């Protein structure tokens, strides 16, 4: 890890650890925005993590951002960390001036009809945002519009972790005034968002593993710690395997950013974290038994996020299908030569 990444880790850990003492999760799940946390987050200057130095950022790019996201996942931070950072970055790349307001990305994949209503489903944190950054593809070009949230209709919804996922209805004429996001393909934007989620999931998986190991060593039944039972140990070993595979997959994807294999390794990261999420949640809950099934016990903060996040920005089946299709299309007719370009 680079020195800068280490710095990110140190200061973000300090900030996020403080968060966990607050009642922010309850606030958020009751539909309120955790303002205090958000202003601390802004005060530390995290919003511009992805921006280049010339745009007033720290120049850490998505790689550095992913370090932050992994920690946000580890601590179940109830803020739009991925969404706000990505939207600010894309806005800056499209030439919008950005300030310290909450911007969230909303992607439209379908072709649109002129002057008609269109609903974008499940926009993260829309109700709390000041503006929406709508990203779509038109004439083979990625275009970006900034819409004030005052100008759209929002129907509130939430994912299994209580995070806002709102349906936003716009009129397509609102998108007429758009900027070109030159040099960035919409598919690339989707994959970056998937990588950010995968990084959060990797952090969350690590936390689930740690909590479960700790619990297995603390809780006694039949006169010994439940972690001493082989049936428990064998499940925990697989949990550790899948967690370390997920972390490795995310790290590998980060290392391959801006390379020719960028999306393939991101796909791989989202598939791996997605598959691990289900196993991790199942196992952690099995080991914790009834106490873990309560709202009071914090395991659910991670597991409900894992269950939600694995389906966001493309689930395992969707990314696998894309990767599989690519394998069938390989011109060289040779899977191996393609696979081995990834590490050289």
């Amino acid at each position, binding site marked *: 890890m680079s020195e800068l990444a280490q710095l990110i880790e140190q200061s973000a850990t300090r900030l996020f650890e403080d968060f966990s003492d607050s009642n922010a999760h309850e606030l958020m799940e009751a539909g309120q925005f955790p303002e205090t946390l958000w202003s601390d987050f802004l005060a530390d200057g995290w919003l511009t993590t992805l921006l280049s130095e010339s745009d007033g950022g720290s120049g850490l790019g998505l790689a550095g951002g992913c370090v932050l996201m992994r920690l946000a996942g580890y601590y179940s931070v109830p803020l739009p960390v991925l969404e706000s950072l990505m939207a600010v970055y894309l806005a800056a790349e499209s030439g919008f001036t950005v300030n310290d307001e909450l911007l969230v990305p909303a992607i439209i994949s379908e072709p649109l009809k002129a002057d008609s209503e269109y609903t974008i489903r499940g926009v993260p944190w829309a109700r709390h945002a000041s503006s929406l950054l709508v990203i779509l593809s038109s004439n083979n070009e990625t275009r970006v519009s900034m819409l004030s949230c005052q100008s759209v209709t929002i129907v509130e919804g939430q994912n299994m972790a209580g995070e806002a996922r709102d349906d936003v209805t716009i009129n397509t004429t609102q998108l007429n005034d758009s900027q070109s996001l030159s040099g960035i393909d919409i598919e690339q934007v989707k994959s970056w968002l998937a990588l950010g989620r995968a990084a959060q999931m990797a952090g969350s998986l690590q936390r689930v593993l*740690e909590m479960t*190991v700790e619990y*297995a*060593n603390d809780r006694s039944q039949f006169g010994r*710690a439940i*972690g*001493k039972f*082989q049936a*428990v*140990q*064998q499940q*925990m*070993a*697989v949990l*550790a*395997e*899948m*967690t*370390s*595979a997920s*972390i*490795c*997959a995310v*790290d*590998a994807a980060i*290392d*391959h950013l801006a390379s020719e294999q960028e999306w*393939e*390794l991101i*796909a*791989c990261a989202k*598939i*791996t974290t997605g*598959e691990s999420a289900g196993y991790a949640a199942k196992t952690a809950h099995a080991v914790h038994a009834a106490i873990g099934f309560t709202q009071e016990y914090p395991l659910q903060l991670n597991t409900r996020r894992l269950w939600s996040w694995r389906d966001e920005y493309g689930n*395992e*089946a969707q*990314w*696998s*299908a*894309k*990767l*599989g*299709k*690519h*394998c*069938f299309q390989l011109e060289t*007719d*040779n*899977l*191996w030569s393609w*696979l*081995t370009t*990834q*590490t*050289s």
Partner: protein
Amino acid sequence: MKKLYFTPVITGEKEAALRAEVRSFLDHYGAFNVSNIIDSWSICDPELSRALAEKGWLGMTWPTEYGGGSRSYLERYVVIEELLAAGAPVGAHWVADRQSGPLLLRFGSEEQRQYFLPKIVRGECFFAIGMSEPNSGSDLASIKTRAEKVDGGWLINGSKIWTSWAHVCHQMITLCRTAPPSDNRHAGMSQLIVDLSQKGITVRPIITLAGEAHFNEIFFDDVFVPDNRVVGQVNEGWSQVVAELAFERSGPERFLSSYQLLEAAIKELRETNLMQQAEPIIGKFVARLMVLRQMSLSVANQLQEGKLPINEASVVKDLGTSFEQELPEAMRLILATEPRSSANGGVARLLSDSILKAPSFSLRGGTREILRGIIARGLGLR
């Protein structure tokens, strides 16, 4: 709780050039002398081993003073994964190159290194692993084969079983009891290098369910081993065996055993126009393979740094052997063909071979349950 480290590694130009060299070698080598390319590292072809030796691809990481190539573990990784992906029958030298040589480098005497390593590098000396016994599999510390001290050496009596390629190998590193069992179950064992052509040794083949004469039973009847063939310290064999495992468990052979089937399945699905329904399944397995490569490379890099990542190696082996076992199970459901054991069966033959060989993947080198036990210990549960 010990953290598991899998920092990804990006290989460079040197490795890319080497990769190209291996591919070109294989392109020019011609057909292998075997009919089965599933699990090719459990198939022996001494001729191929010697050809690879000539290229300098045996003992690659060992110091030049012993005939080695002084190359990195990453370079070795590239060579072995290319050979495995091509289905090359590399079994003859596999154990010597992977673990016996490194064991001698770590614990062996100077004389042993000078005697054995150059021979291994030249493809003239193959090693077998003499650990398991009829009544000691997972519980290796319970072995009964004993070596008694006699003038100038040791006298071995007992038997070993499941010894891969003992009928082809020249030497075997044999784990023996050299002191009676005590409270410390792991004390009192030693590793002895046994020349398999010695008087008093009987090797009897055991045919696998796939019909192959792969492993053997070995009987020792007063077999004499001179003092200078004890590896490392007498009675300290156990810790040496444990060190060997980091080499034994983390390589690409732990997930590429059924790889040939994946390539053939993709071709077949394309030709029979069954791509669309297969995409998510192929993508899922390819993603798993991509991560396993990253993890295994990362372990290779840790070996390069002089570490002994035993827990990480167990993780690679457990995830890897699950992958290579599940692959045929998934492919059979998307391929429109029944497995066929006949000689020219194409993808149906690969399916058959991989289904028949799959059970062994998670047994050899330590069973799934044992590996998970090791990982659990690393987590602090045991």
